[in-house]
């Protein structure tokens, strides 16, 4: 089976104009995203994440190299039929309502008639913008609502690949958790999800594999488990031990030649604590 996305020596230079030379945005990127996996593009601002995404989407032409989507050259109609895209910021026509936005994107994808109308209603419910919210202009939406509307727009043609550019940037913790839950749900449905982020904890939650970019170059690539597992150490979390037993356990470990790297009561992540503090109906 052809990979969902494949790039070879993908390079992009931007001309600065007026004889000011060129700037290198991406240098020889080799990439293979398998079908059905959640793939994270990581890197600081200016690392080339968005440039890579735009070339895969056909919005930018590579200076050299090649990109393919499900075996089709990136940018062709056949390739774009396979992709749904959510941009970093809510770049949507704000004069439209939520329902109109999804309908518009559906029509641009060649959909129409009752099939499209049913899909619009289905997606509005999926992203919790059904009823009155779907009939409001986008300019009255919060950032989280806009991201959800955009996500519904990306999903309207039921694409094979979903590309999300910084999907959780600027979204509150509950909204961010919701987007990550949705990414997991998409994976369960067999979709390929490619997303960029610099919020590393969030990537860790959902990605199967990641690539780390820096100043347009690939630094690392691999499965998160392989990259993050510290094979030289072993960790046990236990419940119900008294203070004396802690000391006893430490002494036992030292006696056997182990170096105690870390010990103590584990801390909950702030995001989990925050979400637990909210009333139950607000957590979603």
């Amino acid at each position, binding site marked *: 089976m052809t990979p969902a996305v494949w790039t070879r020596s993908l390079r992009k230079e931007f001309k600065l104009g007026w004889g000011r030379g060129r700037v290198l945005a991406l240098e020889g990127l080799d990439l293979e995203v398998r079908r059905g996996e959640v793939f994270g593009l990581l890197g600081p601002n200016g690392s080339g994440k968005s440039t890579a995404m735009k070339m895969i*989407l056909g*919005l930018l032409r590579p200076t050299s190299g090649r990109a393919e989507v499900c075996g089709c050259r990136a940018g062709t109609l056949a390739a774009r039929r396979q*992709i749904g895209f959510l941009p970093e910021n809510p770049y949507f*026509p704000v*004069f*439209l309502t939520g329902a109109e936005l999804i309908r518009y994107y559906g*029509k*641009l*994808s060649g959909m*129409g008639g009752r099939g499209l109308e049913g899909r619009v209603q289905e997606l509005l419910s999926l992203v919790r913008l059904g009823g009155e919210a779907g009939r409001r202009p986008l300019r009255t939406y919060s950032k989280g609502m806009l991201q959800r509307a955009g996500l519904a727009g990306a999903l309207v043609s039921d694409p094979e690949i979903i590309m999300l550019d910084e999907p959780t940037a600027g979204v509150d913790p509950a909204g961010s958790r919701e987007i990550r839950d949705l990414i997991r749900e998409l994976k369960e449905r067999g979709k390929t999800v490619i997303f960029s982020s610099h919020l590393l904890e969030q990537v860790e939650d959902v990605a199967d594999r990641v690539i780390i970019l820096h100043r347009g170059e690939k630094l690392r690539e691999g499965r998160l488990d392989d990259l993050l597992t510290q094979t030289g150490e072993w960790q046990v979390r236990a419940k119900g031990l008294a203070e004396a037993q802690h000391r006893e356990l430490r002494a036992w470990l030292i006696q056997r030649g182990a170096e105690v790297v870390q010990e103590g009561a584990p801390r909950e992540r702030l995001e989990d604590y925050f979400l637990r503090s909210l009333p139950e109906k607000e957590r979603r």
Partner: protein
Amino acid sequence: MREAWRRIRAVAANTFLEAVRQKVFAVLLVFALVLLGGANYFAEFSFQEQFKFLKDLGYATISLTGLLVGLLGAAQLIPAEIERRTILTALCRPLRRWEFVVGKYLGLASLLGVMLGIMGAVFWAVLRWKEAQLIGAEGQAVAQAIQAEARDPRLWQAFWLIAAKLLVVCGIAVFFSTLATSTTFVVAMTLMVYLIGHLQSVAREQWLESGEAAGWALQAFLAAVALLVPDFNLYGLIDEIVAGNAVDGRATLQVIAYSLAYLGVLLAASAWLFEGRDL
């Protein structure tokens, strides 16, 4: 092709909807309608002069409003989409770039068509209103002459010529909008071409007649102006009609055909330029 047409229609409908939901176009229309309606109250002259004044003011109002709609609407087309980056979420879909350009143009042309339709209908109603008023004031003796002024079929010729001229202006604006990232640039360049277009025939004559006398640089410049800029003097037929002179229907059709041909070239060039543009 059917699917392409569906996508073009979606872009056009969205462009039209965006314009309709902006207050600026509604305000422009209201001002135009007030001007058209108000023209009826200048009644100090003979009926021929009154009709001449009405037609002058009417066509000037329709032309100017149409020009402003075209310029402002075109400025909203591609540069505004690039500035707001909404273009990314549209062009990442299975939509060809030429379909996007044509859809944008058709959306703007639809807006212009609706506004011209409303202004044309109001202008027609004002003429008929004037006709009834003048027949009441001047008596049945001159009724036929008044009716001939108010119901002159050449007035529709002028109306179609204005529409054709404005469609070309919108085409020029779309052309510049595929090159630019700034709305100001589009408005300024379109306005410049509009003004130069009125001097195009002078440049053409100079180019054809200058021969060896002019240097190559001047000749090249004159040739470029003559070949690239549309000849807006052709629409001078509108003034002839308003002045009451006979204008051959074939001449009107030729100007409309010239407009459509020029528009075709403009849209093809716009689509070609936009195809290679990085977004």
